């Protein structure tokens, strides 16, 4: 069953707002393209989070427009951005050293499937959708914390599964799964449901997830305002 209680816009807002709570001042964070990019909009002004990107910029600021646009300063999505005070530029070898080498505190990225062991598939659907992995595999394997921020289902199709059937981006690297309906911690014991959107029932969650999961003793409501 596909539940359509939330608009697309509100869905994305709930996910991005929740993911933004995962950081602390001083964290170096790499955001994936698409929904994860919106996470930056919900970081409190007084929190100093440093955004990194694989195309060579640490200290990504706002998107630039009009006369302030410089095609020589872009983010990984090809959008012109500002370099914040304290920013630096570097080449791809340095960028990927940061990512693979364990120098990124957290990454937020989307996924096609995540499974109960924390494996993630995000870069291809054979013969249908093959964009390539870019820097995603390096990022997922090297980042200290891997947060998947994605819509709960793909038009009703289950995305949180027992075992990924699509080609993996990485084996057992995901730490946290955030959707508009709930939040799962990935633990050695399996998925633990820690938060639920009050608009949904436990049955809604169980029916829309094929992975086994444990319900946390401290289960909380997600903030959806």
């Amino acid at each position, binding site marked *: 069953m596909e539940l359509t209680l939330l608009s697309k816009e509100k869905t994305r807002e709930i996910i991005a707002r929740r993911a933004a709570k995962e950081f602390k001042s001083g964290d170096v964070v790499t955001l994936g393209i698409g929904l994860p990019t919106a996470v930056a909009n919900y970081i409190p002004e007084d929190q100093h989070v440093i955004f990194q990107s694989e195309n*060579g910029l640490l200290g990504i600021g706002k998107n630039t427009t009009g006369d302030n646009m410089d095609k*020589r300063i872009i983010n990984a999505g090809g959008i012109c951005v500002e370099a914040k005070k304290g920013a630096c530029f570097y080449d791809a070898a340095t960028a990927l050293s940061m990512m*693979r080498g364990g120098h990124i505190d957290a990454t937020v990225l989307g996924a096609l499937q995540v499974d109960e062991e924390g494996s993630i598939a995000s870069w291809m659907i054979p013969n249908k959708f093959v964009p390539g992995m870019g820097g995603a*595999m390096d990022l997922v394997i090297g980042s200290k914390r891997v947060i998947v921020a994605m819509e709960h289902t793909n038009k009703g199709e289950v995305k949180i599964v027992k075992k990924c059937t699509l080609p*993996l981006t990485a084996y057992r690297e995901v730490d946290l799964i955030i959707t508009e309906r709930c939040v799962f911690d990935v633990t050695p014991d399996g998925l633990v449901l820690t938060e639920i959107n009050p608009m949904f029932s436990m049955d809604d969650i169980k029916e829309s997830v094929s992975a086994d999961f444990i319900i946390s003793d401290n289960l909380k409501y997600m903030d959806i305002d």
Partner: protein
Amino acid sequence: MKKIVSAKEAVKKIKDGATVMIGGFLSCGVPDKLIDALVEQNTKNLTMICNDTSYPDADKGKLIVNKQIKKLITTHIGTNPETGRQMNDGEIDVELTPMGTLVERIRAKGAGLGGVLAPTGVGTIVENGKKTMEVDGKKYIFEKPIGADFALIYGTKVDRFGNVSFYGTTRNMNTVMATAADTVIVQADEIVDEIDPNEVVIPGIFIDCIVEREKDLETV
């Protein structure tokens, strides 16, 4: 002093079947005039090594649309639907590789190393057909060095000694590619007499010839 040539002249030595590395991340820091000259020359059956295939109407993407590429080694093709179409129709052989692995394979070639051990892709299809090795209990994939006959790279400022400096996010793979090809051609936004040695990112010894973007009347 390095040779300063037109884009047309610079790409003349690239023959059918050559392997060419091209710098740039999407359309940023990309040697667009060198690519335009290569499109005009219409050299076929090329093997292209690059970060991505950009957009269909831009730089690296034009070589795909013009069907000059036989084999492609890259990290991302999602911004150019024509690459996906040619791949699905069997017109082009595409090897998709993690970005960090591609960078280090190129760097290994330029640095004279016999390959690298990468943790990236362990437990995924990237591992298929490759040797693996455990180091201190952690599994790695052995990845071979990769070089090219030609590297077409971008530089913001290039001096007459071939020293290259960059502005913004234009460095990307240009730096490693400069070290890993038999012939390295740099397209400069501007050629200057001298760059402060403190500002040099690519040492001039890696560069074979320079093309100046704005003054290159033959292709503008």
